[in-house]
């Protein structure tokens, strides 16, 4: 009941001095906003990475041969990075070496890609796209399905035909009210006939698929490649994890033999699997969650100190009120509870505002970027508990000062 009285007074104070309250609570608000926003985004990305991302990017039981590790985890030394930078580019010769090393692989493909400034059709254009030169089987390997038209065929590759399958975003942008099939799009100096459109993927992965143009690798190498020989990656898919691991050993041995690497010398190529990506994400995750409590507690401590000062001012401004309450029968602990309830209400209100802003921030990130956001319930509970802890912690000293007042002195206080 006395606690309710404290809460009522606190809400009254907040409402009567809205602007002052916001300044009072700014530390708590920032801390909790940050906490919720980071957890929201990290959790969202986490779920996404674990559920879809790694598998979708790399595929299950799939590995790729690349020139150097493309997932930077920060754990490689400067020296390792420099050494990898000297690795030779992959070529068609490597493609054949790998192909022969794993004749029983379930699927096999290779590709090369580059970013491209713009793709256009008549007046319309789409910026920042990626052009992929894919071998036969590339789409199957990636698991990309065609929504309209057809995919690339072995014939396209053999004849280096100027044909393309385009992502859904590009199709929407260039052909808002007609079918793209049979149209000739312009890509730099080239004109390519659209033979198919992929199903829209959306979400985080959509950035890659929905904004890509796939052409036969032969076409790419002849008309668009910086360096004609270069191959970006050679990808092998096995039926099972065990088969994949065996195939990786075969490929590693074959490439080392072919490149005449003596025992003890490191590979001058990299075998990339989804583990590299998950490992990298795990690492980012760990860093974020290790840094989070520190950052959040700094702002909460600052916020607590601000609240404590405001409460001390509030006590000083209400000495007479304390005297009156004591004269009317309030015990020390009643006054104590009242001010503790007040500081806690303030702080929890700040936490609630922070939760709202944090969720808002998460949703904004969700809407403006392809990062998915999801607010875990536990983060809200943790935030409210933190708010309560800060409120009680910052209220103890002011409440003690208030409770200690001598009623006679307090009643005469001007």
């Amino acid at each position: 009941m006395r606690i309710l009285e404290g809460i009522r007074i606190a809400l009254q104070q907040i409402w009567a001095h809205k602007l002052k309250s916001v300044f009072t609570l700014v530390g708590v608000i920032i801390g909790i906003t940050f906490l919720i926003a980071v957890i929201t985004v990290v959790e969202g990305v986490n779920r996404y990475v674990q559920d879809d991302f790694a598998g979708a990017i790399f595929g299950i039981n799939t590995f790729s041969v690349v020139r150097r590790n493309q997932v930077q985890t920060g754990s490689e030394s400067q020296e390792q990075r420099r050494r990898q930078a000297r690795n030779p580019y992959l070529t068609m010769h490597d493609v054949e070496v790998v192909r022969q090393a794993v004749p029983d692989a379930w699927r096999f493909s290779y590709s090369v890609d580059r970013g491209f400034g713009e793709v256009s059709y008549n007046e319309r254009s789409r910026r920042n796209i990626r052009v992929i030169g894919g071998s036969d089987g590339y789409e199957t390997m990636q698991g990309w399905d065609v929504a309209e038209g057809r995919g690339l065929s072995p014939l396209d590759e053999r004849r280096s035909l100027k044909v393309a399958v385009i992502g859904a975003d590009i199709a929407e942008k260039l052909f808002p009210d007609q079918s793209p099939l049979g149209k000739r799009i312009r890509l730099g100096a080239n004109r390519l006939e659209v033979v198919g459109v992929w199903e829209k993927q959306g979400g985080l992965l959509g950035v890659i698929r929905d904004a890509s143009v796939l052409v036969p690798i032969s076409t790419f190498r002849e008309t668009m490649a910086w360096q004609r020989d270069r191959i970006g990656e050679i990808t092998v898919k096995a039926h099972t994890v065990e088969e994949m691991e065996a195939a990786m050993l075969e490929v590693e041995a074959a490439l080392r033999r072919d490149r005449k690497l003596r025992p003890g010398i490191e590979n001058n190529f990299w075998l990339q699997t989804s583990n590299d990506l998950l490992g990298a994400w795990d690492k980012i995750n760990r860093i974020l969650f290790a840094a989070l409590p520190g950052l959040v507690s700094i702002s909460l401590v600052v916020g607590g100190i601000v609240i404590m000062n405001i409460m001390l001012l509030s006590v000083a401004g209400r000495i007479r009120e304390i005297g009156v309450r004591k004269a009317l029968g309030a015990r020390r602990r009643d006054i104590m509870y009242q001010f503790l309830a007040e500081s806690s209400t303030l702080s929890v209100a700040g936490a609630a505002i922070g939760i709202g802003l944090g969720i808002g921030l998460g949703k904004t990130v969700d809407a403006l970027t392809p990062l998915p956001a999801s607010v875990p319930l536990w983060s809200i509970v943790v935030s409210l508990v933190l708010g309560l802890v800060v409120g009680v912690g910052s209220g103890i000293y002011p409440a003690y000062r208030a409770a200690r007042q001598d009623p006679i002195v307090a009643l005469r206080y001007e």
Partner: protein
Amino acid sequence: MSVADDIVIHTRDLKKHYVMGTETVRALRGVDVDIRRNEYIAIMGPSGSGKSTLMNLIGCLDTPTSGEYILNGQPVQDLDDDDLARIRNREIGFVFQTFNLLPRASALHNVELPLIYAGVSSRERMQRARKALEQVDLADRMDHKPNELSGGQRQRVAIARALVNQPSIILADEPTGNLDSVTSEEIMSVFDGLHRAGQTIIMVTHEPHITAHAERVITLRDGEIESHDARVLIPATGA
């Protein structure tokens, strides 16, 4: 009802000393007071006479250095802070010169306060606070904040607050000190009405015409009781 039951305040050789640096100020030098139930008492005296000290002791805001104080049959001279708070809550209704209402709370909520600390349920609090406000003719001002009320109305809210716990005594400290003479009379008639209804009233004042409402006047001088019936002084000092 026996004579002992009829005594609501009983003090014997009540002393209060304050230590100020190296000096000891003897604010009360042994005061014997007996006040019966339903008495209407005025305490008078020049400043420094010890009347505030006596009021603080009677009001259980302070404890005596020595002596005996029995309030409503209970010795209170040795109680600790929290027990004194409980006694104040149950036995004493304060009315102050400066009203001392909570500025941000409605009249009703101000009157409810003592009941909050008595642990009364909110439903019963509302009923009793309403009744107390009706008793002082403020039924139509319950939701007003103190700054929306006149001085006389504020003091009536304070009186309602003092009444709401049905205390043994109402202790009023210069209750008309901040009011004009017309409003003063209005407030005094409220006290007279309460007295007629059986309430014990102790009033600290230095205004002789206010003491005219009391049955008995206790005059203090230099920490001792000078006389027990000061009404004869009224013509002498001139009201």
